[in-house]
């Protein structure tokens, strides 16, 4: 059910906040065993929050998210509630503070059902690298959810929450949203405070939303976005009111179709589905403009160099000294960190730390990190050139539909290349939204992405909403 409808029911007392929360908790209890989308479920806390929300509702002072049950990716710090990043090294880590987004959600009276499974430290596109076991796609439990916000997307698809906060560093909200047949919004870099988001790649990370619709993502973004004095990279330009353009005419708008995003490696059924969506927009009066992003072929390499370099540095603090897992039987500091990190991190995380440190070593820095930064600038320029003429850009979200668990997670290069459609958005810091636009021969959802100008979320949300209203989305059935 749409958040607006839930809100109305709550306001009109057709349903109580506690009752609503309980209905989600029951569903989680009954069905999440097959999905494994939650790492931690918080029934007591959720009940308390629902009760508090009910008071606000009763007092007639309730925002649209008041009493709405949400789930939160497990790399967003929640005071007093375990925040693991799906890693052994933070298996029992309980933050002493709330992320800024959590403060905002708490203040408005949203209910937190629990913390969502993910790829370890958000590194991956399958949600199979979690220390707590992989996430299963609600449409077909033998298939992956995508990642890294696989738990967030799956919980929305399965109806285990009204909406979920994920994080997106190279596609980690949009790609699982596509694989799980829901809507996923990655806001402009700086639109949402990162304070309290356990960093993977600081210059690329952004908290985003998985939900049933573009409108729902907008309603959540309205609450969590805005300049935060605790995050120097957050921006005044994030002004809220992201539903403002919904329902306005798309006539005369220009949609850029960058040809490189439809080339080799993109499956035929994905290409066809996205081009059909383009036709929808054409029929709505939009002009389709063929555009080009020549640097796309370097994007994945640049992304993995920059993100791994930042990750290597960000994850250095996990040394067993201050919090989290500490290895036993070490008799020096050097040995303690070696053992703690060797035992505490999974293989994918270690791979990225090694890659990142290699790229930063003196002697290699110019060849790797600096060249990656140059490509980054190039991609920013190429986006700017497209936006000179276009209002939004349309691309596939992922080259294929969700594959079977065990099929390709063990081939890192293949996994990395599958990020081709999403990483440039993070590299350029732009907003993008993914929504289902078809189903493959395997019955799995296909996602398309609308990319906007910086801080032009309202525009892509409106585009996305218009399409969603014409598209028959499949529901997960248990």
């Amino acid at each position, binding site marked *: 059910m749409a958040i607006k409808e839930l809100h109305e029911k709550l306001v009109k007392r057709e349903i109580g906040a506690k009752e609503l929360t309980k209905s989600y908790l029951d569903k989680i209890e009954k069905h999440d065993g097959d999905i494994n989308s939650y790492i931690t479920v918080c029934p007591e806390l959720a009940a308390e929050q629902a009760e508090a929300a009910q008071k606000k509702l009763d007092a007639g002072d309730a925002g649209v998210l008041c009493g709405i049950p949400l789930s939160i990716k497990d790399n967003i710090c929640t005071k007093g509630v375990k925040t693991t990043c799906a890693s052994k090294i933070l298996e029992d880590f309980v933050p002493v503070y709330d992320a800024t987004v959590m403060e905002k959600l708490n203040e408005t009276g949203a209910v937190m059902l629990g913390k969502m499974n993910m790829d370890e430290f958000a590194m991956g596109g399958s949600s199979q690298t979690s220390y707590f076991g992989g996430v299963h796609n609600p449409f077909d439990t033998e298939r992956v959810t995508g990642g890294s916000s696989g738990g967030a997307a799956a919980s929305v698809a399965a109806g285990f929450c009204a909406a979920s906060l994920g994080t997106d560093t190279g596609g980690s909200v949009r790609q699982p949203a596509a694989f799980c047949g829901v809507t996923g919004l990655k806001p402009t870099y700086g639109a949402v405070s990162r*304070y309290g988001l*356990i*960093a993977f790649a600081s210059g690329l990370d952004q908290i985003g939303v998985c939900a049933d619709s573009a409108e729902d993502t907008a309603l959540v973004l309205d609450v969590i976005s805005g300049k935060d004095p605790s995050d120097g990279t957050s921006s005044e330009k994030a002004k809220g009111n992201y539903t403002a353009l919904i329902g306005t005419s798309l006539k005369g708008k220009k949609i850029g179709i960058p040809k490189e995003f439809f080339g080799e490696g993109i499956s035929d059924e994905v290409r066809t589905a996205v081009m059909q969506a383009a036709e929808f927009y054409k029929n709505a009066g939009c002009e389709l403009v063929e555009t080009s992003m020549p640097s796309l072929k370097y994007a994945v390499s640049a992304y993995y160099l920059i993100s791994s370099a930042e990750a290597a*540095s960000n994850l250095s603090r996990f*040394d067993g000294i*201050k919090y989290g897992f500490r290895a036993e039987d070490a008799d020096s500091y050097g040995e303690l960190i070696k053992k703690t990190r060797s035992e505490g991190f999974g293989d994918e995380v270690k791979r990225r730390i090694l890659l990142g440190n290699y790229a930063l070593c003196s002697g290699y820095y110019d060849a790797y990190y600096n060249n990656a930064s140059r490509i980054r600038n190039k991609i920013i320029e190429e986006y700017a050139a497209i936006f000179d003429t276009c209002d939004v850009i349309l691309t596939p979200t992922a080259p294929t539909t969700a594959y079977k668990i065990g099929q390709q997670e063990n081939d890192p290069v293949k996994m990395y290349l599958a990020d081709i459609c999403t990483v440039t958005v993070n590299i350029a810091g732009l907003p993008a939204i993914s929504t289902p636009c078809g189903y493959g021969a395997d019955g799995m959802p296909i996602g398309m992405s609308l990319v906007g100008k910086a801080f032009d979320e309202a525009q892509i949300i409106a585009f996305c909403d218009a399409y969603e209203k014409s598209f028959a989305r499949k529901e997960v059935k248990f």
Partner: protein
Amino acid sequence: MRYVPVIGLEIHAEMLTNSKVFCGCANEFGGAQNDRVCPRCSGMPGTLPVVNQGAVTLAAKAGFALECTVNNYSAFDRKNYFYPDLPKAYQITQFQYPICTNGHIRVCDTDIRINRIHIEEDAGKLVHDDYEGISMADYNRCGVPLIEIVTEPDFRTVEQVQAFVEEIALRLKYAGVCDSRMEQGSLRVDVNISIMPEGSSEFGTRAEIKNLNSVKAIGRAIEYEIKRQAEILDKGGKVVQETRRFNDNHGDTKALRSKEEAHDYRYFPEPDIPPVYLSDEQIEQIRKSMPEPPNMRFERYTKEYGLPADDARLIVLDKDFSDFYDETVKLCPSYKQVSNLMLVELNRCLNDSGTAVCDLKFTPAALAELVKLSDAGTISKNAAKDVLRTMFETGKAAEEIAKEQNLIMSNDTGELEAIVDKVIAENADSVESYKSGNQKVFGFLMGQVIRFAGKGANMQVAKDILTKKLQ
């Protein structure tokens, strides 16, 4: 062979901001361990640094104080290394784009170039308990704002180095950037030193001596290092590039780690902090807000106030002392008199009791009142010294003390004449002796006059009357 040392310095100075550089914790010294830590400065996952604008301003002030260019654009980088006192496992510093560049300071008739001044955060401290066999981390110092001042290798003598460090310490203190308390570690010096044969211009291999915390230690460390390196070269050996630690008790240096063991810090731009932009207007505003530097103050004291150079230097050397002097002469422009009282009497009190100027019980205004009393002839110059000592001890006002101690000079000559007459009448023998040429007796008679007249008596007047009456 005779050698010439080539020396460059890296000076770390803790900045006097109220809070730490990337969080709101108080920036103070001492206190209980881990008393001033928060999720940010203890590197909790998910926290982000936010730049303290006060630290940026102070770093820019340091730039002006040390005659550098203050840059419009500067940016932070991460310096990555593992150590338990560094909770994030990287130090935020300015590597590629420092806030100040290209300075120079003249000491001992030599121009010393300053390559750069950059902002960085301090690390914590490890406390080792050898008895328990454990080490503990104290993060109070984590995130304390530092500037690092890097010079070119322009020093050739110990004296230049010491004079430079003293000058820097003084200028930073005057600019309000750093309290320059080397003994507390708020100013720490790393010395890079190599030697080359006299007449040569090709630098040798350098050693770096870390964390020297007194001007004396700097001198001893350099002298030891010159000797050590000379012995190696004289024997045909090669100096190894390495980091060394100075041991104050033994007066020697020991190797910490060689070049091969040196860290690769894997610097890269800090993605959590946007670059710092200072507009020309902002930079100009900071420049205008700079307090008078010590060299200008010295000029003022010697040229405008007519103080002897030695006195002026002594006053300038201690900023608090000099500020006190300035406040006092603003209210009572007897430059020399105030200078004399402060340099002799007040300094003696301060030194004997180990008191700091900031802990004085009286204000510059109170001192000005004292000097006014003395200038007006209400109390004698000698009495002023006594009053100052009592002010130092009790904090009471000068006039109150002068009255209590009966130091107000009486200008009633009639009373004095009566006393003198009485003394002459009662000491006929002495008067006789004086008249027959024994000048020494005058002192005794004067003493008798003072005994009756009290200390407050105007000595000069009493002396004149006695002289007249004895003729």
